[in-house]
């Protein structure tokens, strides 16, 4: 993934007998140090590629990228709860659905599109605040089961409360909000908006996990009793993590219905819940960027691979097993390990000339 991996063989071949001592090592060192500095530019190029895909006319490719971004938001926010506080939720797609249904139902009842967005987000937040009181009372397997139940209840409501949700058919959304020159009905503006919201959420989550609050969540996962003995009201910290995570799932839901212009119970099904958890675990628990990467891979599998292979789930399952077996830190763990290998290599190469200089 990073330059560190590619540089491996170069550095290993450096002490070859033909080469003048240190020359190839110096070359490798320059390259490796450069790669350290160029990680950010490489990331920028990756973002540029996303932009190009979004901007170009091919609506299939841009929808694919938009789907990735929407699910990346849901997966990253689940990671705050699962990867940091150690609370794996199986109801994340349910809250994505609440956000989306909130917008759709409000619009059906003749609210203006902007008011509908407010209602969608407000409904998710209110539900998160209320259900959190119950959910974060428990930890571990009990938490997984409670969130599973919450997710299934939400799905059941969407499926069976036909008067409100129109049941299996789902609710289409015809008009998207617009303000001044920003008209989300224009595909290009919509794509850019999704990208900007993704960037903002990613930025907020990264700030959050590096804050004292983020540190306290890792403390909750590592040793909650000790954290309480250090003056932390640990229940409050878990509750806040839950509310933030649920709210961002609602944000993903609002974007979901903008992109798809339809919300049906399928988006909240158990398999949708599971898929978001898989994105997080595959990408790497406790890394924020990892789950985004996981979302990219899973959406690609789901939408791209499925056109070539009927048994794409088998491939996904095998990939999942391989990653969990060989890189417990997920895909992001591979990226991190490569970075560490690069740093170790740099340190080794730097130490070498110094040793030669010694008498």
């Amino acid at each position: 993934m990073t330059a560190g991996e590619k540089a491996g063989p170069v550095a290993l071949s450096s002490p070859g007998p033909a080469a003048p001592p240190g020359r190839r090592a110096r070359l490798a060192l320059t390259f490796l140090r450069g790669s350290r500095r160029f990680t950010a530019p490489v990331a920028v190029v990756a973002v540029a590629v996303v932009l190009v895909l979004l901007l170009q006319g091919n609506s299939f490719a841009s929808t694919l990228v938009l789907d990735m971004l929407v699910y990346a938001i849901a997966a990253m926010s689940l990671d705050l709860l699962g990867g940091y506080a150690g609370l794996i939720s199986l109801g994340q797609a349910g809250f994505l659905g609440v956000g989306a249904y909130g917008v759709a139902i409000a619009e059906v009842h003749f609210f203006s599109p902007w008011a509908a967005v407010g209602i969608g987000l407000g409904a998710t937040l209110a539900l998160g605040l209320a259900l959190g009181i119950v959910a974060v009372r428990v930890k571990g397997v009990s938490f997984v089961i409670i969130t599973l139940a919450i997710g299934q209840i939400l799905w059941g409501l969407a499926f069976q409360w036909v008067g409100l949700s129109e049941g299996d058919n789902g609710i289409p959304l015809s008009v998207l909000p617009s303000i001044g020159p920003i008209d989300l009905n224009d595909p290009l503006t919509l794509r850019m908006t999704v990208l900007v919201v993704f960037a903002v959420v990613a930025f907020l989550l990264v700030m959050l996990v590096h804050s004292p609050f983020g540190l306290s969540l890792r403390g909750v996962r590592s040793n909650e009793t000790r954290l309480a003995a250090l003056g932390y009201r640990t229940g409050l910290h878990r509750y806040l993590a839950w509310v933030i995570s649920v709210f961002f799932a609602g944000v993903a839901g609002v974007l979901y219905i903008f992109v798809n212009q339809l919300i049906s119970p399928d988006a909240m099904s158990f398999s949708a819940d599971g898929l978001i958890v898989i994105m997080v675990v595959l990408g790497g628990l406790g890394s924020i960027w990892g789950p985004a990467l996981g979302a990219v891979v899973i959406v690609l599998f789901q939408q791209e691979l499925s056109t070539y292979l009927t048994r794409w789930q088998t491939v996904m399952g095998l990939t999942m097993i391989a990653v969990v077996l060989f890189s417990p830190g997920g895909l992001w763990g591979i990226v991190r390990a490569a970075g560490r290998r690069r740093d170790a290599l740099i340190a080794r190469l730097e130490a070498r000339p110094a040793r030669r200089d010694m008498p």
Partner: protein
Amino acid sequence: MTAGQDRGVGSGQPSRPGPSPEPGQPAGRGRPGEPGPPAGARGQAPPALEASHLSRNFRGLTAVADVSLWVAPGARFGVIGPNGAGKTTLFNLLSGELRPTAGSVALFGRDITGLRPYRRVALGLGRTFQITRIFSDLTVLENLTLALHGLSRSKLSLLRPWRSYRAMTAEAAELAASFGLAERLDAAASALSHGEVRELEVLLALALKPKVLLLDEPAAGLSPAERVDIQALLTSLPADLTLIMIEHDIDVLRGVVDSAAVLHLGTLVVQGSMRDIQNDERVRELYLGGAGSRAAGTSPPPGPASPEMGGRP
């Protein structure tokens, strides 16, 4: 590499001063004979920690039965007793991890019986755990920073990186350095040696600058050399810190505490100065003979007013 190798007996390092809030404090207070609060002060100044008739039952099993303690401010107080005597249960009652079935706990005269652990910590009651409870997924620096944020509003700060709290991270580094963990700041806590882990455990509690510190067997499982380190750490603590320490090895307590209580089968056998305790017949029976259980059952626990806590003349 590890603390045990670095700091053997007599290397001089362990006697560094602790992270005393007042750097000018003389270290090593607390041996018998040093000035404690005058005996008459008990009437006016409230005790640092007072337990009144504490009891706790676990489904019919009585772990702690009617234990009353009175610990003067600044005292070094030991809680001694064989395995299963109810020492840790007593600590959990004092720190709030467990609610008592009956009785009450007061900190500096304030009733804290109904307060949750984090509220007691805010009032100045710190504790360590017998089974080490550090944040093993975090680095030493992260462990200590987390502890330092514990009593600050900044623990709920959401959008400012914890590394940007320079005063906190500097204090964490200083704290680590004062007990020989300076080189290990960026090491994962799970990579520490057992001795270092026990030190970190104490440091986490000290980071909050408690007024009363409950230490649950700080020397458990340590090698003799590491025991000396921990003992040095404990004797270097600030003099105004009230220390209450569980230990089943009386030898570790000797030289650290001035008074102690002996528990057996959940009841208080005797409470008094270390000299009294070592000369007490019931305690000798407990540790030497098998008749201790009967003796403990029949001996009436001394009331909170009987022994002197704050050092002896």
